[in-house]
Every structure is written in structure tokens, then in C-alpha cells.
């Protein structure tokens, strides 16, 4: 159990995180220079296509990255303390206590040979001094909290006796049983029916209210993000391409990728004959393009995109990794006269011209 620390600083700060996988076929930079913050009680949505690195980011925060992957650079500060310098023992104290994680597949994420109550009370006992009886009572209480009817009986049942939606509730109960400051939810509703999905999201909303809990919500579903998130981070091929307030991201997105994602959502109020797609596919991590990773699929591609774009500050905590000006237009050649990016850009253009 943690004493809630509602300090004024951010709860979670990720700075320049790099997690690479060293495989036989080459090095995969699954997470490459990712930085963002989550404040207490805030819900941060992490969006992106499959393979963009969002799950790896969350696993890196939990330091659950295993061979052949390794966190090679960066800092992860939880309440000001760098998790990457902690010993494994200390990390285990943090896991499940200050930060909890729930996963995508409720069907397989619970151990089939133990009862639901056992699995929850195990988490409780691990992070507190409660005895078996106390922990069990807390487990039942948590099951009630997440809306499982007949909680006392359900606690004695095994996971396979419950439906998918109920299992996910059990996972949430387990994650919340230690009253964590941060809940990392990796695609919590993707494997569930739409109606169950709505219930689970409603549950999460009410729980975060009650516990003043921050949530890192990872999903590829923009609808879920719109409903739940305060801030949004958009990831592509291991990098953050845009970050900002949820209203800004949805209302006035800057990065072409974000715009493409939003355009591809079918709308109820407009009639279209063809759905919009972003042409091309996500690049293979072993064959990344030079410069902007999105350039091959970008409708607004420019020559200068062969050089890695800077992270533009668009004001009000809105950033975008793109060469386009804050107004969304192509930059004039020579207009960017400050900084190393300008010199690189000039160099690149002269090379191309030679």
C-alpha cells in the first residue's frame, strides 16, 4: 500500500527512453527516444498501430523487458525516483504496489490453477503485512468494488469459470487491490465485446475518480482514447510523433500521421463511398527509412523529410515531430535559420543537388 503522494511534480516522467531488441536478424529499436509525463490522477492515452512500441514502453516502465530486449538509455522517474537505477528487489516492491498493470487477454492473463480470490490476496499479501484472512477479505471487497455479483462465491472460483468481461474485472480488482498511484492498462478492452468494453471503461472511470489514480491507457482504438484520456501520445515506429491535450489532438491535430488516423475513422454524420486509408504499411523495424520514419506514407512529404524532423513545440503542451510549420505548411528553405537541424537540412539539400 502506498501513502498517496499528491505532490506537485508529475507522477511519472519518462525521459529519452530507448528499449532495443538485439535479435539474430539485427537490432530492433522498439522504443526510440520516448519522453512524456503523467501527472497525478491524469489519464494518458498512448495510441498507435500494432508494433509502434506502445506496449514495449509500458513494459519498460514496469521493467519487465526480457532477453533479447534491453533498456539501453533514458530515465523513468516515478515520484521523482529513477526506476532504472533500482535493484530488482526494490523494483519488485514497486511493481504491483505503486504501479499496477493489466493486460490485453483476460482469458490467459490469470493463472488457471488458482482461484480468483487467491490471486488477488496474493498481490495484497505481497505488498502489505496483512494475514491470509485479512487479505482474502480485501480480495472479496475488491471484487465487489469492480462490480462482480456474488463476490464471495466468485472469489472461490477458478478463472475458467468466469466470462471474459468478468475476468478483466478480476484483473482490475487485482491491480487496484494495492491502491496504486499509477495503473498501466495495455489494451484492456480490445479482446472484449463492445458492450462489455463500455462497462469496463465505465468501471475504470469511476475507480480513478475514487482513488485519484493515474492511468496510462494503451490502445489502438481512438474511440476509447476520446472517452477516457486527458492527454494523448501518438506513437509511430518507436517514436512519439505527436503529444497533446485530447481536445487538441482530436480537434486540431498537427502531424500528418495523426491526421491520417483520424481521417480513417468512419463517421456517422458524413456519407462516404470509400474509407480513407493511410497508404503503405508500417516499415519493418529492420529496415527503417532515414530521416522521418513516416515519410514514405506521408501525403505531405517534402524533400527535407530525408532529414530527421525536430520535435516542434506548438504551445500549450502540444508537440509534434514534423517539419511542417505550426500552421501546418511547408517551411521555406532557409526559413529555419536556428539550430543544428537547419544546418543538417541545408547540408542535405546541397547533397541532393550535387
Amino acid at each position, binding site marked *: 500500500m502506498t501513502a498517496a503522494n499528491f505532490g506537485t511534480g508529475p507522477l511519472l516522467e519518462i525521459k529519452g527512453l530507448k528499449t532495443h531488441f538485439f535479435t539474430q536478424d539485427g537490432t530492433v529499436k522498439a522504443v526510440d527516444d520516448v519522453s512524456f509525463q503523467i501527472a497525478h490522477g491524469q489519464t494518458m492515452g498512448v495510441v498507435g498501430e500494432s508494433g509502434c512500441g506502445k506496449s514495449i514502453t509500458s513494459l519498460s516502465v514496469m521493467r519487465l523487458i526480457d532477453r533479447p530486449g534491453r533498456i539501453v538509455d533514458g530515465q523513468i522517474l516515478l515520484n521523482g525516483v529513477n526506476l532504472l537505477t533500482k535493484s530488482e528487489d526494490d523494483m519488485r516492491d514497486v511493481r504491483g504496489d505503486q504501479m499496477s498493470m493489466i493486460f490485453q487477454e483476460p482469458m490467459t*492473463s490469470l493463472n488457471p490453477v488458482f482461484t480468483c480470490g487467491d490471486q488477488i490476496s496474493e498481490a495484497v499479501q505481497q505488498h502489505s503485512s496483512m494475514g491470509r484472512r485479512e487479505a482474502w477479505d480485501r480480495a472479496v471487497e475488491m471484487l465487489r468494488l469492480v462490480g462482480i455479483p456474488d463476490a464471495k462465491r466468485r472469489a472461490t472460483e477458478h478463472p475458467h469459470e468466469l466470462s471474459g468481461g468478468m475476468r478483466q474485472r478480476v484483473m482490475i480488482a487485482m491491480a487496484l487491490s494495492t491502491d496504486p498511484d499509477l495503473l498501466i492498462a495495455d489494451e484492456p478492452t480490445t479482446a472484449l465485446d463492445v458492450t462489455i468494453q463500455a462497462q469496463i471503461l465505465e468501471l475504470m472511470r469511476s475507480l480513478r475518480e475514487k482513488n485519484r489514480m493515474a492511468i496510462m491507457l494503451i490502445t489502438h482504438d481512438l474511440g476509447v482514447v476520446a472517452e477516457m484520456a486527458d492527454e494523448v501520445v501518438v506513437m509511430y515506429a518507436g517514436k512519439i510523433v505527436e503529444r497533446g491535450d485530447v481536445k487538441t489532438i482530436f480537434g486540431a491535430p498537427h502531424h500528418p500521421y495523426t491526421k491520417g488516423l483520424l481521417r480513417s475513422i468512419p463517421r456517422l454524420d458524413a456519407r462516404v463511398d470509400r474509407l480513407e486509408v493511410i497508404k503503405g504499411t508500417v516499415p519493418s523495424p529492420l529496415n527503417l527509412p532515414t530521416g522521418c520514419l513516416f515519410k514514405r506514407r506521408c501525403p505531405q512529404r517534402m524533400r527535407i523529410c530525408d532529414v530527421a524532423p525536430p520535435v516542434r513545440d506548438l504551445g500549450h503542451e502540444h508537440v509534434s515531430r514534423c517539419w511542417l510549420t505550426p500552421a501546418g505548411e511547408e517551411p521555406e528553405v532557409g526559413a529555419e535559420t536556428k539550430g543544428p537541424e537547419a544546418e543538417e537540412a541545408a547540408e542535405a539539400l546541397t547533397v541532393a543537388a550535387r
Partner: protein
Amino acid sequence: MGSYIIRRTIQAIPILFGVAIVSFAIVQLSPGSPIDRFRGANVKPETLANLARLYGLDQPIPQQFVSWITTFLQVWRREAWGFSLSDGRPVRDVIFSRMPATLLLGGVALALTIVVAVPIGILAAVKQYSWADKIITTFATVGYSIPSFLLGIYLLYLGGVVLHAFPLFGMRSLVGGGSPLDIAHHMVLPVLSLAIQQIAGWSRYVRAKMLEVLNQDYVRTAKAKGLSSNRVTYKHALRNALIPVITLFGLTLPGLLSGAVITETIFSWPGLGQLGVIAVAQRDYPLVLAFVMLGGFGVVAGNLLADVLYGVADPRIKY
């Protein structure tokens, strides 16, 4: 669970019946007759005819089968399984007298297998890619590939001839033997010969299952809860990985009864296996038939045991 056992037992009956038919058929189809051994230059035809009638050989085959199987099932009677053609003793007595030796050998080998194979299989899985894993996997592959009779020969050669440390045959020393220590001394080589191959096979299986389990989502969840890696491995993972291993145990039991035929022959171990080989060589049909039935029973019982154990161990299974 109780009704499941009863159901399975009932299902086993036609299988055992089929086993009886097949073995009886093989005996009937083979050239020659049980009374051939009694033919001699001085034996009168009437004697042979009397013998034929005594053994029921003059009856039509289906009738012979029925009378054989009905007597066979009355296990409590001494003469239920017939009389051995070589020494006239009741087959039931002969088999029961040999059974302890085989059970001893097989039991010790099985115990050794469990005690050694399970831990090294787990070790290899937990420390995957380490040198321990490589050594264990190599040993398992090689050990699995050496046929057990070859292993027996080589162990016999190494232990008995080269090192001169172990006896070359039998269960007891001819002179003054019979003490537990003496028997144990005789048991070392045959047990090793049986166990090494089994250990190789089991440890591969344990390792494979353990690896499978360690890659499951719920193991990741357990780690995310902040449990120590020992807890994760030995409580969450092992409990799941051992379930199929338990069934393996049930499936290995039939081998105990059939006797390690080849091993017992190589080491002249006075058990059921050696008896079976001799019986076949001597065309001692009643004994041979009893053997096949015993083997079939062992397999069926072993399968049933494996399924029951699985049902007990895995809460997902509801019989």
C-alpha cells in the same frame, strides 16, 4: 469423478476383450501345435490324442476361446490361467512369483527417473540458453537416442568387465547372496540402463512444458504483481507445467508390468520380462497368453490412472 472412473472401466472391457481376441488369434494362427513338444519317437498316437483332448485342442476354435477366456477371468482360482507347458506349474503362480523382481527393478528406475529428470528439466527451462541448459539438452538428446539394450550392453561391459565393479548377471550372488545390499549391488547396472533413457526422455518433456508455461501470459501477470522470481517459477509456473508430467507418470506405469524385456534378458534379471522371452522361445502358449493379457491390462489401467490424475491436478477439468 467416481462416475467417470466407472464409465472408463466399462469402456475398458471391450478393449481388453479385443486384446484377448488378438492374442488368441496369433497363437491359433501360428504354425505348429502346443502338443508338438511332446512328440517323440516313442510316443504313441493315442497319447498325443489324449493330450490334445486334455488341452481342449479337439474343440472348435471359438469354443476354445470361450472356455479359455472364461477360465482366465476367474483370477482367484489357481488354475485360472492354465498350466505352463514347460514345467506344469500353474501360470498364475509362475507369474506372481516373478512379479516382485520386475516391480522392484521398474519401481526403483521410475523413482530415480522422477527424482532426477524433473529437477534437471526445470533447471534447463529456467536457465534457458545457459551452459547448464545446453549440457542438459545435449545429454537428453544423446541419452534418448541410445537404444536401451545398447546402453545395457555397454553398461554391462563397462561396469562388469572393465571396472569389474558390478556382477554380470542375476539378482543375487550365487554364494551367500540375498541380502538387501547384495540385491542392490546387482540392481545398479540394470536400473541405470532403464533409467538413463527414461530420464533423458522425461527431462526433455519437463523442460518443454516448463518453457511453454513460462511464456504464458499469466506468468507475466505474476511478475507484474511484484512477486519474487522464485515464487513466479515455483508456484505459478511449475504448478501448471507439472500437470502433463503427472499424466506421463501414469503412462509409464504399464512399462513396469510388461517388464523391461530386453534389460532383464541382458542382465539375467529373474523378472517377468525374462520369463516372457523364455516363454515365447519355448512356445509356452498359456504363459504367453497370460503375458499379453497382463500387458494389455497394464496399459489400460495406466491410461485410466493418467486421466484420473490429470483430472485431479487440473481444476479446469470436470469429470
